[in-house]
Every structure is written in C-alpha cells, then in structure tokens.
C-alpha cells in the first residue's frame, strides 16, 4: 500500500498551489514585458500608476473571491464600489478626524451591503446570483441619487498618501502586501477561514462536522461587501471624484480575475492571493495593449484570448490523469 514518495516538500507545495504558481509566473512575464516596452521603463512613476490600476481591480477580485469560494457569486461587487465611491466623494474631505471617520464609514457601508446580501441569501434561501443581481440595482440606484453626475471631491493630501509611493515603493503594492500578509495568511488559519472552504467544497460535510453553515455564509458575503467597500474607497483616492456609473465593468472583470487567478467557480478551491494575481494580470494586459499600438477596439478580443489560454493552462493537468475518471474529478 505504501507508494514511494520521492518528491521534495517544495515540489509538493508548488503542486498543491499550482494555480497560484501559474498565475504568478504569467504575471511576472507580463510585467517584465510591460516595463520593457514602456517608454519610461521601471520608474516609480510608471510602477505607481500600474499598481494603482491593479489594486482597484484586485480589491474587487478579493470581494468576488469571498462569494465564489462558498460556491456563490456576487454580481453586486461593482455596484457596492459605485455606492461606496459616491459616499466617499462626500465624506473624504475636511478635518483629519472627519476624513478618518469617512474612511471607516465608506468601508462599513460596503460591509453593510454585503451583510444585506448575506441575510437575504441565508434567511430568504434564495440563490446568490438572483439576490445580488437585485441588490446591485438597488445599490446603483442609491449611488445615482447621491451622484446623478460624476462629481464631488476627495482631499488631495489623503488621496496622494494612498496612491503615490513610500521610499519609491508604490503605496498600492504596500497595501496589497498588507492584505496578503497581515490579513489573508493569518485568516486562512482561523476556523472561519477553514469554514469558508469547507462550505464551498461540501456543504453537507461541513454541516455534519458541526460547522455553523449559516453564519459562515453570512460572514463570506459580509467580507465580500467589505472588500467591495475597500475597492470603492481606493477608487475614490485614485480618481478623487464620485461616479455612480462604474459598476458593470468592475463586476464582470472581478469574475474574470478570480477565474484567471485559479479560483474555481464551483467553490472550495482557490486563494485570495490567486484572486489578486488574476486582477493584476488582467490590468497588466490592458496596460500592455495601450502601449503596444493595438487598436483599442480590438482590446476585448485579445483580453478574451489571453483569458481563455490562461484557463486552459490551469486545466492542463487533466492530460496527466491516468484513470479517465479522474478527468472529471
């Protein structure tokens, strides 16, 4: 019964996280190409603009990740961003205390939106796709009431602090690092972090193991809302205005990003790091196109092709399966 196991620990680790490894390699290659083709090279200026664009989608992808990992989907990610962005355009100016309160309020508003989604899904027993489609309209409606046309202002010092650089390192990359190292890695080792995967992978097994599945699902959607709020907040810092019309693009791109980052839509598989990597890849591709001279109308075509290829590489291990039943596992 004992099979020889000659593989090293490192290889084991890479294999069990191969989706993230693939996404990471793709990202590095793309980034190198981008820096190589950019007329100004790897300057802090270029890197900062790149990192800011990536982090907005990255946070949206984090939001989507929490919904997808529990076998759900959140179609309101973009709408939560739009709403929190519009709220931010009112609250992120004035005294230091007022701005601090504003930032907390913006993120709390996002979490509240997520909590609302979760409550309807858990207690109304309605599928997430239906619930979030409906609430997305509500959130956009509220955003439009707040900002019928783009406008408002965000304190420039605050915005600069969040979107420029610290000692040459883009602040957006520092925030990304904080999300991964200060939040995600510890979170993954908590009962809640484990519960998310258990719920997405097999709800029945999770329930029979004594997990409070309703609370976990509620927590997952609240976290999705919270990260949607963070995305909206950071978007406010980057654009310094409020705009209710940003929802649709971010929702779809957040789904594309998690898929690209190796998060399976069937739930239970993938990591926040993967979702972030997926978002960074998508944005880097878009930036590459901008400088490569491809007509902007052809961009969706190329983005789609790259998406398809990346997913196909992720699924290539199917070819190695020796037992044909494993192909479908």
């Amino acid at each position, binding site marked *: *019964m004992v099979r020889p196991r000659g593989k090293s620990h490192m290889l084991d680790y890479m294999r069990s996280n191969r989706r993230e490894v693939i996404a990471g390699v793709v990202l590095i290659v793309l980034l190198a190409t981008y820096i190589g083709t950019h007329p100004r090279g790897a300057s802090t200026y270029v890197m900062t603009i790149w990192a800011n664009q990536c982090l907005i989608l990255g946070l949206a992808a984090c939001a989507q990740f929490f919904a997808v990992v529990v076998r759900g989907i959140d179609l309101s990610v973009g709408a939560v961003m739009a709403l929190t962005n519009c709220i931010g355009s009112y609250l992120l100016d004035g005294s230091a205390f007022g701005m601090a309160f504003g930032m907390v309020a913006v993120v709390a508003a996002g979490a509240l939106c997520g909590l609302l989604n979760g409550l309807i899904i858990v207690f109304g027993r309605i599928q997430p796709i239906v619930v979030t489609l409906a609430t997305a309209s509500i959130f956009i409606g509220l955003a439009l009431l707040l900002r019928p046309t783009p406008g408002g202002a965000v304190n420039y010092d605050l915005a600069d602090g969040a979107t420029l650089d610290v000692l040459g390192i883009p602040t957006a990359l520092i925030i990304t690092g904080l999300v991964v190292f200060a939040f995600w890695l510890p979170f993954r080792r*908590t*009962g809640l972090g484990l519960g998310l*995967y*258990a719920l997405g992978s097999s709800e*029945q097994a999770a329930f029979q193991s*004594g997990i409070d599945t309703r609370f976990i699902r509620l927590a997952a959607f609240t976290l999705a809302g919270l990260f949607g709020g963070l995305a909206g907040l950071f978007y406010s810092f980057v654009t310094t205005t409020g705009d209710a019309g940003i929802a649709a693009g971010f929702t779809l791109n957040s789904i594309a990003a998690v898929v690209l980052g190796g998060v399976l839509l069937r739930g239970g598989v993938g990591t926040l790091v993967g979702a972030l990597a997926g978002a960074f890849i998508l944005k880097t591709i878009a930036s590459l196109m901008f400088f490569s001279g491809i007509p902007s109308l052809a961009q969706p075509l190329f983005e789609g092709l790259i998406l398809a290829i990346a997913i196909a590489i992720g699924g290539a291990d199917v070819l190695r399966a*020796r*037992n044909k039943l494993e192909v479908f596992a």
Partner: protein
Amino acid sequence: MSPLELEVSDMFDSTTPLLEMQDISMHFGATKALDGVDFVCKAGEVHAVLGENGAGKSTLMKLIAGVIQPTQGRLRVDGKEASLNSPKTALKHGLVCMFQELSLVPDLTVRENLLLGAPGAGLGWLKGRGLDTAQSVLDRIDGADIKMSQRVADLTLPQRQQVEIAKAIMKKPRLLILDEATSALSASVVEKVFDLVREERDAGTAVLFISHRFHEIEALADRISVFRNGQCVATFAKGAHDYGEIIDMMVGQKIEELFPEKSPHRNEAEVVLDVRNFSWEGQVRDVSVTVRQGEIVGLGGLDGQGQGAFLMGLFGLLRKADGTTAISGQPGEIKSPKAAKHQDVALAYIPEDRKTEGLILDQSIEENLELAALGRSDLNAGDAGLYAGTLDQLALKHGGLHLPVSSLSGGNQQKVVLAKWLALKPRCLLLADPTRGIDVKTKTEIYAILRQLADQGTAILLLSTDYEELIQLCDETHVFFNGEIVASLSGDDLTPQNIIAATLNVSSEGRVNGATEGQVAHA
C-alpha cells in the same frame, strides 16, 4: 475530590444511561422512518444496531447526531432532557457520529479536515489541538501512509474511512456512532479499528455500531438491537440469539439460505472473457483471468492491491494499459467505456461508489436507467420496455420512476445501477463490491440474480471485500497482492483460511492469527 468532580463522576454512573430515547417518531411526509421507538444506550458498551436498509437505523443515528430533529418524542442525555438541534449541539454533548456518507470535505487537506469541528476549534485561530491523537490513531489503523498535507479528494475510499475514524476519535466522544464505518476497509484494518473501539469502550465510551457484516457484529458487539420497519423489535445481549434467528427478526420471515446454490462446475464451457497479461503503471502486473460461461469469478485481496484498477482497465477506463482482452474468442481493443458497452463487446461495469460513479442522484430513476443504453445504436434508450423486465426481476421498490434516485434506499439505488446495465444484456458483468453497505435481504436478492445471470450464460467477474461472497458465491476466486494474482482458489480450496493466507501473501500452512480466524467464523 471537589464537589464539581463528584458531580462529574456521578454523571458517568452506569445506572443513568448516557442516552435515553423515549417514544421517538420521525415522519418524512407519509413515510414513518421511525415509529414510537424507545432506545437506551449505556456507557462502556458496544451496542450493535441491526436492520435492513430502510428499517430506520440511519434515521436514528442522524437524530442522535443532531442532523435532523424528531417529529415527536423525548431525548435525554445523562438523564437530562436535551434538544439536539444541530450537529454542533450534539458534539457539545459528546455525541460523535462517523457517517456512512462520508463527512469529509474533498478540497481540504487531511489536516484541515481533522481541524474542522475539532474540540475547541471555533471560528478563531486554530491551534491544532488533538492532531497528535488523530495521527496516532491513523498510525494504529494502517493509515500511516496518509499524509496530513494530502487533499482528501486524492485519497482512496478506504483511506477516507481511516481519516473519518481518526476524526471521530480525536473528538474524544462519550458516545461514538459507527455507521458502516468500516465498509470499505479490508479485514486486517477492520480488526485494528475494532481494537481501538474496544479500548474506547473500556475507557467508558458508549459505542453504537451499525454494520451489515455479521462477523463484525460477532466480533465487537456486547448488546444488539434489531430494527424493522421503523420499530425496535428486540434488544438482547450478544449470544442470546444465533445468526439465523437474528436474520428472521430483521426480515420478519425465514431465510433458509443467504447464498444460492452453486451450479455444477463446467470446465468445458465456452470461454466468454479471456484476459491475458494485463498490466498498468506498475499497479497491476501481468494478470491473466478467464471466465467461462456460467461462472462467477471472484477477485479478492486487501484494499488497493490492483483488483479495482484491473476491473476499471477491462472496461477501458485506464490510459496506457497493456494486455489483450478477448470476448467469446474475438480479440478486441477496449479503449473507452463506449467501446466496452458496444454490442460486439457487451461489457458492463458496476462501479465501487454507486453514489458518485454509478448514479446521478438528482436525476430521476428513468433518466438514470437510460444512461447506459444511450449511444448503443441497436437500442432505443428511451423505450421504457427495455427496463421493465429487469426492474421486475430485481424487484425494485420505488414510489414512481419519475422520482429522483436519491429518494431510494441504498439497496434499491444499487438495483437501479444493475438494471441500467442488465438492460443491455451484457455478455460479461464486472462488479466492484456491489453489496457494500447494503442490507442482508437485498444482498440475498442480488446474489440470487447474479447466479441466475450466470446460469443464463453471462460471465461474471465479482470484486468483493466480503470473504463470504468470495467463498459462497464464486466458482473461482483470484486473490490479488501488490498488483499480482497470488492465489487462484476453487472447489475445496476455497476456504477462509486459504483466502486470508493469500491476501496476506503467506503460504496457507503459515500460522493465521487468532483474531483473523475469529472474524470469519461465520463464513
């Protein structure tokens, strides 16, 4: 001794039963799964629960584990009324269930699965307490090669059961429910699990034990309760009634013989299936098997010795398999299940795990029946007449063919898997442990049908983890070890001692240890 400790020791007093159920009923719509059941479970005792599928055993276990709540009745833990409204509450009372439907999360690692719902593991930081216990349990039950970092989805079925056992023991249960907990494990591992369970019992744990294998009940139980039609018909100490009497209680009628009589051996009968030098990736090595018309040929051995892969390979499920297969003298290359079921070959394969590989649980019985015939150009899969005969023959109990397969009991689900393949009139039937976790009565029916099919000329290759089947049902049994056939037994050589010796790959003259002998006393 502090007053608190006194109170605690009072709670364990053997005069107060650990769990007491009074007048418990459980209705699902019009079906009464349990009907006014009184049931008592004492600490320090292994209490076996017997009954056919659908007798209410699993429902009873689910009630105790808090998965479902009774329609009526009262439940006391340590003499105090308790409401078990979720598995979490049941766990708090120390009631731990090892479910027949595995409760492991496939995408998580072994370690993470063990941590899920472990004692003291809430939503906060996981300290990994109890993992040492789990590891030592795994080491004891031959699970040392299961790595903590392995994904559960990558484990074999027996390995998953081993992890389930470790997960249950690590929760330090006061009442441990084993619901078909060892159904996929081989005899030597089962014996080690039993040693562990006996230790738990001697330390004061109450054990509820469900199994369809009589020798397991014989080996482990102190007290036996028999369930029939949602009622507890008898509770008695082990030894008060013999094998035959217990079966009578379970089915409510006499069963003279569990197994049909073997047909006279026909050495000169036509060879239907002839496999030569089958090999695959080092897991199956140079295996040759011949099945003649009218024969049932058994495949035995410990888990994962290549017998399962051999059956899959015959049916075209494995890549890069070597060897030749001839059906009725016609050599053919079987590269896929579609080729295997083609009318010129006409193989049928009943997989090991009916719930994931044999059936689509959410689809109706009708739709499941059609799946095998689809793609056969000579058959109309949509024609209900195709299945009517086999359904009658199998005596499938159902509430309507339009209902989902998941509404059937385990035994009847297996009958659906059989029916869909029998409709194709296969020349050779490959069965991977078809009676695992199925009640005695349905088993008997399936045995009779297999014998009948064999007599009608179907060649049958039967993989089994149950010695009794290999001895009583099969005309010849090949025992696998490390990918090879190490013994081919037939006629008078087909004895428990010889099979055990071969599965352990020792000569039959070698000493067979007492524990193993005890297990097959009934065979």
